[in-house]
């Protein structure tokens, strides 16, 4: 499984045609304590760079964008009751949704782990 990152601080982990999406540890640290999150509908068609979810911390509300185009297959419903998971384990238990990729070619435009790390360090 390969993980890619966006400049908007989402991660996407690829497993064949299916990918899991969440926000990065850097993103959760900048947001502060997350108090609410709104997930996409299962079956929704997302486009790369389009709004996929909303995450709200004590002070800021932010959009989460889809790193790729595709159809939502599953959402992490546990986040609705326990948004704190996004802070505690952003890159594992705090995943947002799983999406079936419609164009794996889009992945070529994303950061790999080293490139994302360098990107964050430069911020």
């Amino acid at each position, binding site marked *: 499984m390969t993980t890619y990152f966006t400049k*908007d601080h989402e991660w996407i982990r690829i497993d064949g045609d299916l990918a899991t999406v969440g926000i990065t540890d850097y993103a959760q640290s900048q*947001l*502060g*304590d997350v108090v609410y999150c709104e997930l996409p509908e299962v079956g929704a068609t997302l486009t790369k760079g389009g709004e996929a979810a909303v995450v709200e911390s004590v002070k*800021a509300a932010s*959009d989460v*964008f889809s790193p790729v185009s595709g159809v939502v297959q599953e959402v992490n419903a546990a986040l609705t009751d326990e948004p704190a998971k996004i802070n505690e384990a952003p890159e594992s238990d705090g995943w947002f949704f799983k999406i079936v990729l419609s164009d794996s070619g889009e992945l070529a435009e994303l950061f790999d782990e080293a490139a994302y790390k360098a990107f964050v360090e430069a911020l």
Partner: protein
Amino acid sequence: MAMNTQGRPTAPTTPETSAPETFTGNRALQIEEALLFEIGRNDVTGVDFDDPAPFTERLGKHARKSSIDLPGLSEPEAMRHYVRLSQKNYSIDSGLYPLGSCTMKHNPRINEKMARLPGLGDIHPLQPLSTVQGAVELMAELGRWLLEMTGMTSVALSPKAGAHGELCGMMAIKAAVRAKGENRNIVLVPESAHGTNPATAAAIGFKVVTVPARPDGTVDPEAVKALLSPEVAAIMLTNPNTCGLFERDVVEIAAAVHAAGAFFYCDGANFNAIVGKAKVGELGVDAMHINLHKTFSTPHGGGGPGAGPVVFSERLSAFAPLPFIRVEADGPVLVENESELQAGETPFGRMVAFHGQMGMFVRALSYMLSHGADGLQQASEDAVLNANYVRAGLRDLMSQPSGDRTCMHEVLFDDTFLDGTGVTTLDFAKAMIDEGYHPMTMYFPLVVHGAMLIEPTESESKASLDLFVATLRDLVMKAKSGDVERFHQAPLYAPRRRLDETRAARSPKLKWEKPEPWSEAAE
């Protein structure tokens, strides 16, 4: 995802308490007041009603079977309850209230006296118009002053607040765009805007596109031009902007917007800095709301009525909503219904049931007339002077995001001066509470890290500003000298200490619930 770049910490700290507990939980004059539901009883009332005369019960199965448990208090108990609650308030009547962009200025008492005149205070919206001609004339006079000060063509007095005024202005713009047979659906909003601007545009179906700010927080006309297209309906710009700076390129921006066939909405939240100095109509603005509670000293908030009149340029006047005042040869007429419209009047609809908040109209006009044209101009000048006095008093200790330059009615600091101290903007603001001040606006505008936006208003004397500046200087010195604990624990002297904002947001208790034993006993 979009980022929280404000640097606001959200993790709670747990302060240690040092003062000994009292038996009552009260701390001298800080009374621990229980909720009304906790102190009220079913068998007590402050009012004696006679038992009703014999009547026939016709409610049938709808008759109430159990008590609704409304709490009852005797008159002295009710009085104490609300006085104690009111004592927990901080208001402009208790001290300096430097909330940037909110314009917490003194509310002159003559306004209150005027609003209570029976001919203005005791009238009803459903009274025949012939019996309230004085009130209609007052509204016409208020509108005339607003148009004179803004250089605009028409005014809608009915919107109930600033954001409602934004909605009114943007709905007029939408109507004007559609009347031209166009389908433009993009609204440009600068990064530094009040959050209500993009919210308003989105609420009526526009797509919001963000205009990036220049390093000093102002809007670059080139950035606007690059975003203009036949799809753009309007730009929403605040001037002076939320960084306390006058948008110097506003005329160029307006010309570009108009050339692209779009409209220019101005957020008038900061109009108080330019009254008598600049007419927004001459800057190219097509619509602007005016917060009467900011610029014209009507009371803020408290759940009370607000008023956010909107002024329109000639390009939008035809679309101003009902009701409006038409000045005819023998006096002003309140046009309330579509059947009364004349040629060229094509209102987009109406915002409210009646004409707006009469009480606020009276207070605002009272402020205008008691100041006069010269007094209003001086109020603007003094507001700007006071903000710059604060800036000059703090510039060597605190950091400004775009260097030390003359500001308008509010001065903006960032948190660079706190770097390495372990103190954040939030801690600094909490420490101000211990010093007896309401904190300034913090973490806004979003384009500045750890923003502290201070608006002293023209109400403050030099002595008041000197004490405020000295207090902030003292706090900065304490932060820099490593006295960090006092900041992390602040507020130490407030009725409640540092609040856990995360828990409040994650598991809010929005409704009072009966304690267990009580509910069991009732069943």
